[in-house]
Structures are given as structure tokens and as C-alpha cells.
């Protein structure tokens, strides 16, 4: 595990600490991807490369365009301009289900557990190439029974790892919020992805589950998978990410290892505003109180 970590750090030895820097072995490359909603430019990414086999965090203040960027990369939304590729394959105009089939699987900010399916059905659904998913074969159970048994075995194995095995016959809706997050991650693994994109995996998860989620994500890296995740929880970002990409107002404003990012002036500005540490002078204070009074009078 430790050794693996060192290796991941090595990926970035010669990488420049600048937005859009070149990586040794990028799995995902985005080029001039932009998306406007009316007059608002939600995403305007000049260039981004995501290193294979590493954990990359995508952070930024609310409204920075992180989720929109995720949606664009996975085909859930179409950009106004831009090209992006996964494993060298151009993903422009590729629908979400084919993106997933190619090995790039995402989760959602608002967990999408399939409520009226049981936990094990949630898992089995995600398995790739189940022949019984074709309409014609569905009528002939002997053509898919064996495969289904294998899929269930594999599902149970993963559920054991995620400590959800006791819940396997419960409806997904009966799980707690944190357990649903775990299920969503476990389910994504059933697709056997190369790149896993997690949209706020820690949102609403209690500290105990958080720790186990962290371990699972590290474990993915140990298995040689690539992880790209959006997160607001800075402790998590600092603890597990090998590389951090910072977005603000749709643009990538900084890139680097976690330690370099917390001291980056541009990042602090983006999060807290340019004058966050300037003292309030007499003038602005009285302005503020005037505004307040005005508000009360109204």
C-alpha cells in the first residue's frame, strides 16, 4: 500500500505545477471544453489531463462548474465547444451508456440508488455483458442462469468488502444515506471501470463510514484504477488525493499536489475572495451598518 502511494507520487515528479500541465500517462484528456447556459459560462476548461493510476481531486467553490464538467465528460450534457478523449478514444457525441461501457463510470452528487430494487439487484444490474439483458434471451433462462450465478457471487464478494452483505436482500431505499453512497460506489465497481468518477462521495456521510469509504477509494488505486472525484471535504482531499485540480468560475485555476494547493494564493482568493484578510476600515463598517438599517426600515 505504502509502496503504491510512493509510485503514484512518482507519476507527478516532473509535472509542472500549472493549470493544464502535461501528465506522464494521461487516461483522460480534455481540450477547450466549454459550456454556456445562456449568458453564463459554466465551464471553460482550456486543457486538462488526468493521470492514470492516481487519485485526482477536483475542487472549487460552489458554482465553479465541477459537476457540469463531470456531466460533459460523461455525456450527460453536451458542451458548446471542445474535445475530450478517454484512453485515446474521442468521446465527443458518445452517449453516457457507451462512455460507461468504455470503462469510465461515474456516480452522482445526489445518490442514485435504485430504491425498489434490492441491494443485490442493484449490484447485479451493473454487471457487464449479462446475456439475459437481451430481450430475446430473457425468454430462455438457461442461456443466462449460469452467468447470473457468477454475477451474484461477484456481487456478494464486493458487498462483503463494503460491509453491506447483511443488507443484500433489503430494498436499497431502506439503506441510510451513507450506506447508499457505499452501495453506489460498490455498484460502480461491478462495471469494472478503469476510471471512476465520484461526485461528492463524502456528502452526508458520517465520520465512521467516511473512513471506510476513504479506504475503499485508496484500495481502488492499489488495484491500478484511476479515480477522479469532486469533493468539498478538504480533510479527505488532503488525505487521499495524489493530485488536486482547482476550478473556479468554470476555469481551471491551479493544479498540484495537495500540499502546494492549500498555500496557493489564487486558490485562497477563489474560495474566500480577494479581500478576505484585509481589515474592515471605519468607512466600510459604517456602510454596512447603514445598509443594515436601511434593510430594517424597509
Amino acid at each position, binding site marked *: 500500500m505504502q509502496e503504491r502511494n510512493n509510485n503514484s507520487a512518482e507519476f507527478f515528479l516532473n509535472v509542472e505545477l500549472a493549470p493544464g500541465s502535461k501528465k506522464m500517462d494521461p487516461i483522460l484528456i480534455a481540450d477547450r471544453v466549454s459550456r454556456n447556459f445562456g449568458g453564463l459560462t459554466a465551464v471553460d476548461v482550456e486543457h486538462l489531463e488526468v493521470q492514470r493510476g492516481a487519485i485526482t481531486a477536483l475542487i472549487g467553490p460552489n458554482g465553479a462548474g465541477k459537476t457540469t464538467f463531470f456531466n460533459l465528460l*460523461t455525456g*450527460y450534457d453536451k458542451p458548446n465547444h471542445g474535445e475530450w478523449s478517454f484512453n485515446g478514444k474521442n468521446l465527443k457525441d458518445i*452517449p*453516457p*451508456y*457507451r462512455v*460507461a*461501457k468504455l470503462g469510465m*463510470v*461515474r*456516480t*452522482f452528487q445526489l445518490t*442514485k*440508488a*435504485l*430504491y*425498489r*430494487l434490492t441491494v443485490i*439487484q*442493484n449490484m*447485479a*444490474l*451493473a454487471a*457487464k455483458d*449479462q*446475456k*439475459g*439483458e*437481451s*430481450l430475446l*434471451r*430473457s*425468454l430462455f*433462462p438457461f442461456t*443466462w442462469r449460469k452467468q*447470473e450465478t457468477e454475477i451474484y457471487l461477484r456481487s456478494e464478494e464486493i458487498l462483503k468488502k463494503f460491509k453491506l452483505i447483511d443488507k443484500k436482500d433489503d*430494498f436499497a*431505499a*431502506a439503506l441510510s444515506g451513507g450506506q447508499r453512497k457505499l452501495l453506489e460506489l460498490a*455498484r*460502480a465497481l*461491478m*462495471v469494472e471501470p478503469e476510471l471512476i468518477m465520484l461526485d461528492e462521495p463524502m456528502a452526508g456521510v458520517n465520520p465512521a463510514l467516511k473512513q471506510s469509504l476513504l479506504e475503499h477509494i485508496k484500495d481502488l488505486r492499489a488495484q491500478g484504477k484511476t479515480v477522479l472525484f469532486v469533493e468539498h471535504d478538504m480533510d479527505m482531499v488532503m488525505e487521499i488525493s495524489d493530485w488536486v485540480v482547482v476550478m473556479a468560475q468554470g476555469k481551471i485555476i491551479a493544479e498540484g499536489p495537495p500540499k502546494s494547493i492549500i498555500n496557493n494564493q489564487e486558490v485562497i482568493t477563489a474560495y474566500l475572495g480577494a479581500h478576505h484578510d484585509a481589515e474592515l476600515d471605519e468607512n466600510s463598517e459604517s456602510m454596512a451598518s447603514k445598509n443594515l438599517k436601511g434593510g430594517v426600515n424597509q
Partner: protein
Amino acid sequence: MDFLFIAQQTLGATIGVNTVIFALAAIGLNMHFGYTGLLNFGQAGFLAVGAYSVAVSVETYGVPLFISFLIGILNSVIFALILGIPTLRLRADYLAIVTIAAAEIIRKVTRSATFNDVLGGSDGISGKFGKDFFDFNPFKSGLETSIIRFSANDLWVVIVGWTIVAIITFLMWVMVNSPWGRVLKAIREDEDAVRSLGKNVYLYKMQSLIIGGVIGSIAGFVYALSRQSVQPDNYSTALTFFTYTVLILGGAARVFSPIIGAMIFWFLIVFIEQMLRQAVTAGYIPEWLIGVNQVGQIRFMLMGLGLMLLMIFRPQGIFGDKKELALDARA
């Protein structure tokens, strides 16, 4: 009051031709609404396509009856494609709007004077287009017992009809319990999640729409054949809503619920009607309160009241799982 007559009428309706038709229509709708979450408000349109395909092919163009069934199935597939291609990529409510409009368009076209020669206008088509089917009828006389009566033709329709219902129900059971069915149920829950797992949601929704539609058109075959006539106004939106009633009575997303739902639906309608009619005739209900001619409307009012009570006290339907329904509230 003649209770034997009431029992006879009620029992006949409970397992009769109309029950077969509604059960089939609801099985198709169950595929759409119950399993895939598709809001199809035009099931009557699929029945009309089936019924008219048979009547028009045989009566107007002289096509053999059994080939007209194939034409009917083909037409319902085309109808499903026309409905699905533009709407299945969009949010669920668009399908609802398009299907309800399309079913009405079909009804309006079939009853328009312009196509009188082919489609028969508002009178529809009556004739002997079911002759080939009834030629196979092994029953020379009808069923005449003290508690149940069917004419020879009805008996044949009912037996063939229930056989079809049994076969289709069995196929449905196999399909919805397969990995294919699992994808459908997952789409009902959250289609974006299913996309993220590498399934072509659009294709599955289309397959579901087509299969449910074809089953609907088979209900249309039975409708047309049993009466040897088709009339446009039989395929109004009311038929779709009755089909929903049947499905919700039984409980959506249960394989047997359309059958039980259809039986209960027709049992109640005929039972209430016969009871009221006899009570009015016998003077138990005074004429100033309910006249004989009002019984037909009153039975639907009572039916509606019954449905409301069902939704309040057993919202999951007869077969539904209350636990599952509670989960749907996304607590």
C-alpha cells in the same frame, strides 16, 4: 329480486369477454407503467390499432383473418415506434402527452367521414370478419347452467382469450424476472443511474413500449372479434383510464394483478348495476331517487367511490407490497 340472475350476470362478467380484453390491455400497460415507469396514456390507441387492423384488413380488403393478426401486430409496432422515437429521449411526462393525443388522433381519424369507405366512419365496421375464427369453434351450443351462461361464440372467445392471457402472463413472468426485466425496473427507478452503468436506456424503453403495445393490440383483436364489429368511440380515453383502474386495483408491477384487477373491475361494475337495477325495479329504491336509466351512471360513481376507498386504505392495490410503496415516497 332475482338473486340467481344477479349471480349469473356477475359471474359471467367476471370471467367473460370484457374481462379478457381488459386483462390483456392491462398486462400491456403493466409492462409500460408498472415495470418501466412509462406513462402511456394512450393504451386505447393500441387497442384501436389492433381492432381496426383486423376489421379493415378482412372486411375492406379481403385479407385472410390470420394474416390480419400479423398486420395488426406490425401496425402496433409501427405505432409504438412513432410514439417512442421522438419522446422516449425526453422526460416521462412528454410520453404521457404524446400518447394521449395519439390515441385521440386515431379515434378521430377512424370516425372521420373522409375515410368512410375504408374505416367505416363513426358507425365503424360491422360484419362477419371473425368468420374464420368462429369456424374453428368446436362448441355447437352455448353453455347453459343455472349460474353461468355463455353463447357458443362467447364461450369460444372466452376459452381462447383466457388461453392467450395465460400464455402472455407466463411470458411476462419469465421476462420481468430475467436480467432484462431487472434493467426495466431499474429504469423505472432512475434512468440516469442505469445509463451510468452502461445500459442503453432508450433501447429498453422502446422494447417495453413495443411489447406492451403489441399486447394491447391483441386485446384489440379480442375486442373486435368478440363483437364482430369495431366502433371508434369504444376506443376513447375512458378505455385507457379503465385500464389504469384495472392495473391499480390489482397493484402495478405484479404479474397477476391485471387479471385479478380486470376480474374485480367487471365483477363490481356488473354486480352494482344488477343490484341497483333489480332494487329499483322491485321498488326497494324509490323512483325519485334513482331511475332505471340512471343506474348506468350511478354504478360508475360507486365504482369511483370504491376506488377512492381503495387508494386510502390499500394504496398498493390488491397484490402490491405496502412496504415497497412506502419506499416510493423516497423517505
